[in-house]
């Protein structure tokens, strides 16, 4: 059995980047899906909880979650590997060194936004995934969104995501070999739109923080943020 082609995906510079790009695109797609889910919050408690019930009733959900986790871990693993190599190869010792015009804030901060997103994700899991869901999902989420500290962290996470995706999305296309004067401007535009869409998460949280759904005070459940 010839496994050279699998080894090349793991052990070559382009191979690893391919893994990053593919998993990155999947995660980006997931984020869009997740944003769409969250938009249901605007529709109200019933609509949102119905959707969550539908999700939870899917027997394949644990498998999908594991798949998502695998994609995420692969993205991180490839990223860490690439970063270590890049760090080892980074130019050093210059007395003066300027960037030459290719870098963007997004591309220069990929590592930092990645760490922030990971930290946020862990926090997100601890606050929403591994908690008692008995009060209902809508209540749980919207209550959190009415907490200033939580929203600040949440908005911070979304901002990191915007930056990360502003480089990551279009970069993934380049890595997968899609670069053509005809399509690339659209890819760049599309990538920016996806990145900017992540602002949507922040907007939702701010919507509830400012109590724009006009929820009476006694109906708000107090969450304890762990």
């Amino acid at each position, binding site marked *: 059995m010839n496994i*050279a*082609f699998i080894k*090349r*995906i793991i052990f*070559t*510079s*382009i*191979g*690893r*980047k*391919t893994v990053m790009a593919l998993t990155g695109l999947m995660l980006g797609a997931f984020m869009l899906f997740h944003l769409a889910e969250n938009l249901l919050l605007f529709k109200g408690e019933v609509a949102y909880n119905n959707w969550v019930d539908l999700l939870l009733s899917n027997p394949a959900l644990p498998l999908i979650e594991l798949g998502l986790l695998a994609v995420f871990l692969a993205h991180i693993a490839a990223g860490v590997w*690439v970063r270590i*190599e*890049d760090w*080892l*190869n*980074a*130019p*050093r*010792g*210059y*007395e*003066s*060194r*300027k*960037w*030459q*015009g*290719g*870098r*963007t804030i997004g*591309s*220069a901060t*990929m590592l930092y936004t990645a760490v922030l997103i990971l930290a946020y994700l862990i926090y997100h899991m601890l606050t929403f995934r591994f908690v008692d869901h008995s009060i209902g999902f809508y209540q749980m989420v919207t209550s959190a969104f009415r907490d200033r500290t939580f929203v600040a962290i949440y908005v911070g996470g979304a901002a990191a995501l915007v930056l990360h995706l502003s*480089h990551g999305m*279009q*970069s993934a296309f*380049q*890595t*997968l*070999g*899609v*670069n*053509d*004067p005809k399509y*690339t401007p659209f890819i760049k535009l599309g990538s920016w739109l996806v990145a900017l869409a992540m602002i949507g998460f922040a907007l939702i949280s701010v919507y509830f923080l400012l109590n724009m759904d006009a929820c009476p005070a006694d109906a708000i459940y107090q969450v304890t943020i762990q």
Partner: protein
Amino acid sequence: MSDKKNGFSVTVRVWRQDGTGEPGRMKAYKVSDVSPDMSFLEMLDLLNEDLIKKGEKPVTVESDCREGICGCCGLVVNGDVHGPDEHSTVCQLHMRRFRDGDVITVEPWRVKSFPVLKDLVVDRSALERIMAAGGYISVNTGAAPDANAAPVNKDDAEEAMDAAACIGCGACVTACPNGAAMLFTGAKISQFALLPQGSPERQRRVLSMLEAMDREGFGNCSNEYECEAVCPKDVKVANIARMNREFLLANFFGKAEPQSAGSRD
């Protein structure tokens, strides 16, 4: 001489290092009687002539054609790869870019895969080894059909020429935040992939050259395009995308295996 009339002075801070692995340091020199019509390298010539006369070791710096095509020269001037002019080699930089009293830092390519040999000269032979791994079309002398036997789409030929314009100076590696040689390697792979003559062995070529590139310890591509921004010949990162594409196609849909390294026939 009219030079003196317009002459001005600058201070150059130059990297001095006796040999590979030796410690180095920046050293400042004053250069007077600089003419705005001088090239940057001619200004360094002036400094060196002065040092030689004083019996000091001149600054070792590599340059040859001084018309931007041989790829010998390469310096980081005031933090800019190949100097402040866009898409140009440092030999084409002229002193009219500078003013009296300027302090100019001059440093070598500082890339892990290009060890400093002396002062401002580095060893770029890693790029040679990438070329030897597959940067060619395997055709023996005398075996070629008539030059017009295979028509080549003009647009493809032009694009191949865009990629082939690479002068192998290493600026792309130097500008890369990760010290990657993707633009250099991608350009060569692109040139041949775009031409029908290069197609038969395109799969083996990309796998072999990629393997050699990784073996030399060049970094990964983070798609930041610093390489494209400094390339004296304006070679585009689309060539890196094409290399990636070639790799994926070869890896998943091709039969080729890379040629074994250093195989002796």
